[in-house]
């Protein structure tokens, strides 16, 4: 993929991210932050490619470290967001 295409994609996705966050109720601020944090664990794709390349011992070892860190971000991020939202839902139920 050429650089210009990448810059176009990056720029459009940046503006899309701005539009995604509309009027969010304050109770959802932390879950939304946590959910977005889980998405930033997408860097695991880069970690897998680095480790999978098997380029040299040092690079493969760094790939392993990156996979562990990124997977903690991904799995921890989604699980913790789900826990927050689970509580949120039952709270709403109590009010009714």
């Amino acid at each position: 993929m050429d650089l210009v295409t990448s810059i176009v994609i990056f720029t459009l996705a940046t503006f899309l991210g701005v539009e995604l966050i509309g009027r969010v109720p304050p109770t959802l601020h932390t879950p939304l932050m946590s959910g977005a944090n889980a998405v930033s664990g997408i860097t695991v794709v880069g970690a897998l490619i680095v480790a999978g390349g098997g380029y040299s011992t040092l690079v493969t070892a760094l790939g392993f470290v990156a996979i562990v860190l990124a997977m903690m971000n991904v799995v921890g991020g989604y699980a913790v967001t789900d826990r927050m939202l689970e509580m949120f839902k039952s709270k709403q139920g109590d009010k009714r």
Partner: protein
Amino acid sequence: MSHEIVQLLYLVAAVLFVVGLKRLGSPATARQGNLLSGAGMLLAIGITLVEVGSMPHAPGTPGANPALVWGVIGGGVLLGSGLGLWQARAVKMTSMPQMVALLNGFGGGASLVVGAAEFLKAHETGQNIPLETGVVMQLSLLIGAVTVTGSAIAFAKLQELMSGKAITFPLQNPTNLVIFLVTLALAGWQVSTDVPLMAPFLGVVVAGLVLGVLLVIPIGGADMPVVISLLNSYSGIAAAMTGFVIDNEVLIISGALVGSSGIVLSSIMW
């Protein structure tokens, strides 16, 4: 799988992130949104594993031994998932903001390590890094490093491992500015040389780590959630920069989404 199918499936994952994040913003759909986004992540990881399986390997490298490569990947995925799940279960509901800070630091750390690995790959062979790759590589190292230590300080303040009070010292802002300018100079040095150099590489990483600390210590505990949201945005930008380095669209799209939505969320929370 052909390259085109891989790219289209990455696009499906990116769409799931977009719809998931949108739904996270409304109480009725938030939990479902998180699940959709998680499905996108699972898809992205699955496609990447298929792609890794078809990567060419030079003889004599660790990659020439498939058992080793899959052992490293499988071990890393299992260990990281296990630790992540354990933390998510163990954390108290009242400790959620610092948990997000911690996880965010791990994500930023992963981007930093991937950037470092890409640099070392070029350094080991002494091969020239193209100008544009060099620029984004410096950014991914710098932003990744700032995210790691910044998140660590945010975590330490909220967890009361250190004082939650704002820490200030004379000439704080000029000091930060000088360190930032030195970092830019080091990055410029690296980008302008023909062969990858170790000294500016280490310099940029260390300066980024120091900057992360200095940027977060003057902020008090009460304002920390806003800082965490901002650092979350940084880790997204770091992921997008890593996407430019390894030429991967799904990283660029998702990183940019998190980068900009995090900044908007910080300003709403402020």
